[in-house]
């Protein structure tokens, strides 16, 4: 796969290594703006082709290579540039466009511009905190395509357990695993204790409904 990665900072570093792991034979092109950084990146990523471009030149590069590029990943240190480059890639029908955000507050702005794959590196913070602090409900992961979700739910008492059993009965598209308060893992909700944390995996639509019925009950 021919991937264009724009940027040479932290995000780009992790992106480049991930791409190498996913598609070891693929063609990775990294664009940077300064000659000093190009030199450093060439040494850091010997498997990639590192190209120097001016800020305005990147768009011309995308336009003239759009028919052979499989993916564009915008990972510069400015969300303004990321937005510009994603828009150009979109206008030139590059099949896969990914933005790695610097500021999660820009997620909505990117979505409005039709950038479907937006990575928010800080998204893990609320998820981890919710798990550590044991919040009542927590969405742990959602696939980028939006169809599958992993979530957790705190169970406190027989009543709640009965309620969730009722909701899961006949739901073959959701699987559950309960970690009891003593740390024991139960793979069937029928044999679960009344207290613990329930992990659910299944269709996003279904899980959202289940979580919705439990939300707002406690912290």
């Amino acid at each position, binding site marked *: *796969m*021919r991937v264009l990665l724009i940027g040479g900072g932290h995000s780009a570093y992790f992106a480049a290594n991930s791409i190498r792991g996913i*598609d070891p*034979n*693929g*063609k990775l092109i990294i664009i940077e703006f300064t000659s000093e950084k190009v030199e450093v990146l060439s040494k850091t990523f010997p498997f990639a082709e590192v190209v120097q471009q001016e800020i305005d030149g990147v768009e011309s590069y995308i336009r003239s290579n*759009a*028919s*052979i*590029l*499989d*993916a564009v990943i915008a990972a510069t240190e400015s969300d303004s540039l990321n937005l510009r480059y994603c828009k150009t890639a*979109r206008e030139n*029908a*590059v*099949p*896969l*466009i990914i933005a790695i955000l610097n500021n999660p507050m820009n997620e909505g702005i990117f979505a409005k511009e*039709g950038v*479907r794959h937006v990575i928010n590196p800080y998204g893990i913070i609320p998820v981890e905190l919710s798990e550590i602090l044991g919040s009542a409900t927590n969405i742990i992961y959602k696939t980028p*395509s939006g169809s599958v979700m992993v979530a957790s739910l705190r169970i406190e008492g027989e009543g709640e357990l009965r309620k969730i059993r009722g909701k899961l009965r006949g739901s073959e598209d959701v699987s559950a695993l309960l970690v009891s308060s003593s740390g024991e893992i139960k793979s069937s909700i029928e044999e679960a204790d009344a207290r613990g944390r329930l992990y659910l995996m299944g269709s996003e639509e279904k899980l959202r409904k289940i979580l919705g019925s439990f939300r707002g009950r406690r912290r």
Partner: protein
Amino acid sequence: MFPPEDVILRILIAAAVLILSYFLGGYVKSRLERVLSKFGAGFARKTSDLVRYFILFVGIAAMVSILSLDIMAISVIIVAILILLLVSMRDIVLNLAAELYLATRKPFKENDWIKVGEIEGSVKSIGGMDTEIITYDGDLVVIPNSYFLRHPIINKSQSLARYVELKLSFPKMKLDKLEQAVTEVLEEIKPELFGDPELLSMSEKDQMVEAHVSLPIVNVRKLRWLTARMAKGFLTRGIEVEIE
């Protein structure tokens, strides 16, 4: 005939009804557009426009009635207007229904790979009236949205890669030598693919050797460039090839 003062009164009332229907149409349009905006701006605008024209049409009918025109004349006018509206707006109504269908069911998104009828390709944009699709050959096909109501849609977007099968025709030569060349050329273009290319079959046919290969590609527009690179790869090995 009516007395002159009665005629003036009727004309005034008819004019008032017409003006009222005009403003009522405008008001209903703006309210409806706001309510329907969740289904997409284009759909909301067009539907509310239709409703506005309908109110205006009712206003005109009422005006004609107040003016007490001959019942036959009124019927003829109304039927003619209705037929004219139906004929001229058939496509608009169909596209509108299709737009509502696409907005609510969302059978595909931009960049999805779909097959609809005989057309297969990547969705470039979804508009109010039509949808743009880029095919394997890199051609941009504009499909009126009503097309989606008449043909089943197959969304093939679960995998990034599309498996494209190519037929390679060579002049007759030793199969083992050719197989090695094909493997080498496929290896050369591998960095451009999403996974391993595959030599599916190789057989002698008349004075030719025919091979079928499968390429997993993400960007369909790349196919022409890839076939050119493959042809060049064979040529540098002294082998002529025709790729379909």
